[in-house]
């Protein structure tokens, strides 16, 4: 045996510190991205189902003689529902599912950061969902002949990225809460669909809900994100907008920071409570 040959049981180089953090992020994001390649029909169904909902609302607007720009509002809102559903079912509820399937205890036992796990879930979710949202936007725009007038592309991209960062920060934060709620998590996620579609103005300008309702709804990042994107995408968007775009960008940035800090704190709190009360391995079906 030469001196350069590697012994059979040589230790695998271990990652630690930020390398371990990054490797964990990538490892948790990987199944999210690859998973949809394994089940491509899901992409079709996700796009198809969203287009059905979008079409129903578009035909309502047409039945009552709405200006064509409202059709565009519905298509953009319909595309963004993909992100909200992903945050609800694959971020907020995810730790609960992981507990049910037995993975949560493994995550906690392994020498990695739980924040890295959540961040990986978020990144993988964003990449996987962006494909669906893009498809919904494209198909909806083509079917209903939506006309866009983008005057400030960098601002639009910045608003989109900030919205997703804040939204997935909210998802990371609520993952801990949903885990503590246990069996109620499924119902709470189910409950947070239509009411949020209403309050965040997915299918109409949120300004129409009145100032204070819109202010309250702004805690959901999609409220201001959608409003800002519509202002930047449609000629009459600014007229129908709730707040000026720069103000909405600042609020989104603040929400982003707040949610990430809250996610980190809640994660620690959840772990302490769950370990103390022995709820990490319980399964209350």
């Amino acid at each position, binding site marked *: 045996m030469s001196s350069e040959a590697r012994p059979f049981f040589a230790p695998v180089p271990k990652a630690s510190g930020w390398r371990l953090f990054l490797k964990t992020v990538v490892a948790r994001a990987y199944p999210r991205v690859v998973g949809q390649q394994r*089940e491509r*029909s899901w992409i079709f169904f996700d796009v198809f189902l969203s287009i059905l*909902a979008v079409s129903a609302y578009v*035909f309502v607007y047409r039945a*009552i003689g709405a200006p064509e720009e409202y059709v565009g509002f519905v298509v953009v809102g319909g595309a963004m529902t993909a992100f909200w559903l992903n945050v609800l079912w694959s971020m907020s509820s995810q730790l609960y599912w992981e507990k049910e399937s037995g993975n949560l205890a493994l995550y906690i036992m392994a020498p990695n950061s739980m924040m890295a796990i959540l961040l990986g879930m978020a990144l993988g979710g964003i990449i996987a969902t962006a494909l669906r949202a893009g498809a919904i936007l494209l198909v909806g725009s083509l079917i209903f002949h939506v006309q866009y007038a983008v005057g400030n592309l960098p601002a639009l991209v910045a608003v989109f990225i900030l919205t997703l960062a804040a939204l997935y920060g909210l998802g990371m934060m609520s993952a801990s809460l949903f885990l503590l709620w246990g*069996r109620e998590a499924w119902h709470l996620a189910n409950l947070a669909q239509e009411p949020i579609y209403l309050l965040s103005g997915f299918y*109409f300008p949120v300004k129409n809900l009145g100032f204070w309702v819109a202010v309250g709804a702004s805690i959901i990042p999609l409220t201001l994100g959608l409003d800002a994107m519509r202002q930047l995408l449609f000629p009459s968007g600014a007229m129908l907008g709730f707040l000026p775009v720069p103000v909405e960008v600042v609020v989104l940035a603040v929400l982003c920071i707040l949610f990430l800090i809250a996610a980190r704190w809640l994660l620690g709190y959840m772990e302490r409570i769950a370990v103390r009360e022995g709820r990490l391995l319980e399964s209350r079906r």
Partner: protein
Amino acid sequence: MRPPIHQSTTLPTTNLPTRWAAAWRSFRIATWLGWQIESNWTDPFLFAIYSMLKPLASAAILVVMYGVITNGQFQNPIFPYIYLGNAFYIYVGAVMTGVSWAVIDDREHYRTLKYIYVAPIRIPAYWLGRGVARFLTGSFAVLITLAAGVLFLHVPFQPARVDWLLFLVSLTLGVVMLALMGLVLASISLMIAHHFFLIGEAVAGALYLLSGAIFPLEVLPPWLRPLGFAMPITYWLELIRRSLLGDIASGFPTLSGFTNGQLLGILAGLSVLFGLMAAVTFRFCDRRAREKGLIDRTTNY
């Protein structure tokens, strides 16, 4: 001689009264079980809030959309058309997916489908019973939505002018038809794992769009309208609107050429058709699921 694979070995299949008694017992117990599953995850107050919020929010989305465009002209006949269609469509999601979801719940979540299969019960009656809880919560949601419409949004409802007989007959026929459609979906759900979330949603979504639940069928592109006329829910919702609104509903051109009797006949015929489809689909899917060993399969999807 071995019994045919699709017949339960635990129940006598020749004695009709016994079969009906077993079916009734299965239905009754499944109704109780379904109600426990639906409601016991929280306290009654939170459950009531939960049952109200979703349907009210769905209705409010349409109300805001309508109000924004028409500046709040809720007296226009199109508004009660949209509002009532949306309110009664709650039954489609509740009953149809309520029945079919029982398969997924028992197989994937509670992992009890195999035990239910070996118990002395009638499976289709059991599934129908599981749908009753959703029917009850759906009825509550429909009532709340209607009350909100009448009290706050000027939906024209005058009890003395309602054709109650037509309403009750239409509602009963419609709910039976939806339960039978749910039975078809439940049978198909026995055979699939990867798409079970999507099958109920896809059917409910397609029906929402094509049945003219929230807009007259004339708004659809001409090539899609025939599909709308093929959907039994189109006729059911028209009957409900006519019974509750009278002339306001029959003023829309979509089905104005049909009398109430003709619409009832179409709905009854389609319900019988779905009953036959449910029987055939169940026999086929049940046999295939047993042959392929799918009854106790859990996929963690």
